[in-house]
């Protein structure tokens, strides 16, 4: 099978058309993830709201020291949310990759919790760190050169600075594309595929950039369409809230008053996110399948 950027970009829709139930599974997974994060982070979130209310009561006279409890409460949420976010992301990413690479393994909407997910989580974290370090180095060097050019008043300095900055951005995009198939490879080959993506993506950078851009644009169109479909529901619930009465209310009071609306919004958001995950991530798995020429016997 040959790789076509425009064909691969539509893989998310093919996944949903083949197994429409995956949408329900993934939406339910999103809901459970939200609930779990909210449940585990309920204490710190309540602390954050209380700190925010205290800060609001202080008014314009608040000093930077008064901000400290709020910042501490805010930071207390991270140790819970970040690991959970990574784990949930890994489960969903692995499920989307599996739906393309092993379409027959559709039990539980392709969702699993095993070594695949652990590997995907580790690979995601490592590659995020690699990307962060690369950005620091590239933009650090670009900044240093810009500083030197500025200090030395070199003729044509601004133009050189812009070219170097654009080159740094291009290098980051290139690196992101070269690493973009790491997750599908990790799931397909059942190993920690940190840099295997480099081999597979060689000579296909432009096609993969095109595929990613098209997939991104399709997520925009899908978001627009889902917002149209959900518009009457959200407007209906929004109209049921007495917005005037919220003025002067504290954060907890507002949360209680708009609770039903928030619940509906979360459910709709979960459905929308499930579809968007398929549209955004499935093309990369399809690109790996097509570039490796493995095919999917179940689809033949």
């Amino acid at each position, binding site marked *: 099978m040959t790789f076509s950027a425009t064909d691969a970009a539509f893989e998310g829709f093919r996944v949903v058309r083949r197994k429409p139930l995956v949408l329900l599974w993934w939406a339910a997974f999103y809901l459970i993830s939200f609930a779990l994060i909210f449940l585990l982070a309920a204490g710190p979130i309540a602390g954050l709201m209380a700190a925010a209310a205290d800060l609001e009561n202080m008014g314009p006279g608040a000093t930077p020291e008064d901000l400290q409890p709020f910042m501490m409460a805010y930071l207390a949420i991270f140790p819970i949310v970040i690991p959970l976010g990574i784990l949930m992301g890994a489960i969903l990413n692995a499920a989307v990759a599996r739906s393309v690479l092993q379409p027959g393994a559709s039990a539980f909407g392709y969702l699993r919790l095993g070594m695949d997910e652990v590997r995907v989580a580790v690979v995601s974290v490592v590659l995020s760190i690699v990307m962060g370090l690369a950005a620091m180095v590239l933009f650090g060097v670009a900044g240093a050169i810009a500083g030197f050019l500025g200090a030395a008043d070199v003729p044509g300095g*601004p133009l050189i600075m*812009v070219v170097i900055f*654009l080159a740094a951005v291009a290098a980051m995009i290139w690196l992101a594309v070269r690493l973009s198939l790491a997750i599908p490879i990790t799931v397909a080959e059942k190993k920690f595929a940190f840099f295997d993506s480099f081999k597979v993506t060689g000579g296909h950078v432009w096609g993969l950039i095109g595929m990613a851009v098209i997939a991104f644009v399709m997520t925009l169109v899908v978001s*627009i369409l889902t*917002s*149209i479909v959900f518009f009457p529901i959200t407007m209906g619930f929004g109209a049921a809230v007495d917005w005037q009465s919220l003025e002067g209310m504290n954060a907890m009071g507002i949360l209680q008053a708009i609770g039903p609306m928030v619940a509906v919004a979360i459910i709709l958001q979960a459905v929308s996110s499930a579809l968007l995950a398929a549209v955004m991530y499935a093309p990369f798995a399809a690109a790996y399948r097509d570039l490796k020429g493995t095919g999917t016997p179940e689809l033949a």
Partner: protein
Amino acid sequence: MKTFDIMEAVAEPFRQAGRRPLATIVWGLVGLLPTAILFALVFSVMGQGGLMDAVETQGDLGPEFGLLLNAWANLAQVLDLIVGAVVIAAVTRATFAVRRKDAAFFLRLGWDEFRVAVIYLLIIILAVVALAVIVLIAVAIGASTWSLLSPLARTLLFTGMVLGLVVLSLWFAGRASLLIPTAILHRRLAIDEGWKLGRGQSWKLFGLMVMLFIVVLAVALVMMLVVVLVALAVGAVVGGMDWTMLEDPEDWAMGVGSNPWIWGPVAALILIPVAWVQGFFHLLGSAPFAHVVRELSADRDSAPDSAADNPDESV
């Protein structure tokens, strides 16, 4: 190598409008839908006494009005994109169909329209990113050469850069304009084919863009003249017109608005020509490029079937 005639491409919207007057009106009506919905919603809210009372008592309309207005504005934008995709696809199909008629005026809602929306957004995003990069480079060139060049040389350089940007934009627009018709012709996202189709035709497409710009300008001027004349005639009948209206046109316009009994029939009367004008501008925006794709691609004398006719269509 296959080629096309610029004047034939420019003539295509006029040809289609002549062959399909009813379809032109229908496309215009569909195109006006988002604006009509937005106006209807805003006027229905403005007409509610409660909001006006709120302005008088509180000095503003309260938070819910802002939320509602924001939601409607977003809805109108979203509808605009969808309706735009539907009409562009319909006009393109009609151009491919040459003379063949269609009971639904070639209007559909399916994968073709989805692909049109995707390509439309893709072109906008790429154009914005490219423009940002070009402007950044142009500013850097300007800053680098400011102290090195004489005022005359600077003026010439900036004029050259602006002209270069205009030429580059038209060149890109010409090439990109074939993407949507090609996607509809091939019934898939055929971006690669669409871009390659314009290979070797870039300067002809550039010429077509320039010609279309002139034609749109001329048509818009004629339309504006007609609209002003019609508005004056309607005003004379409805609101009573004399030379004093020129002294205070706002007051005269308010006076016209105080005759609501006449607005229904007048609006209905005006709607048809307005819809035709809107439909004709849709034709001007899409038909020439569909014509070019039809000429550059293999012979094709019939429009693609609707997505509904092809349930097995690959996405």
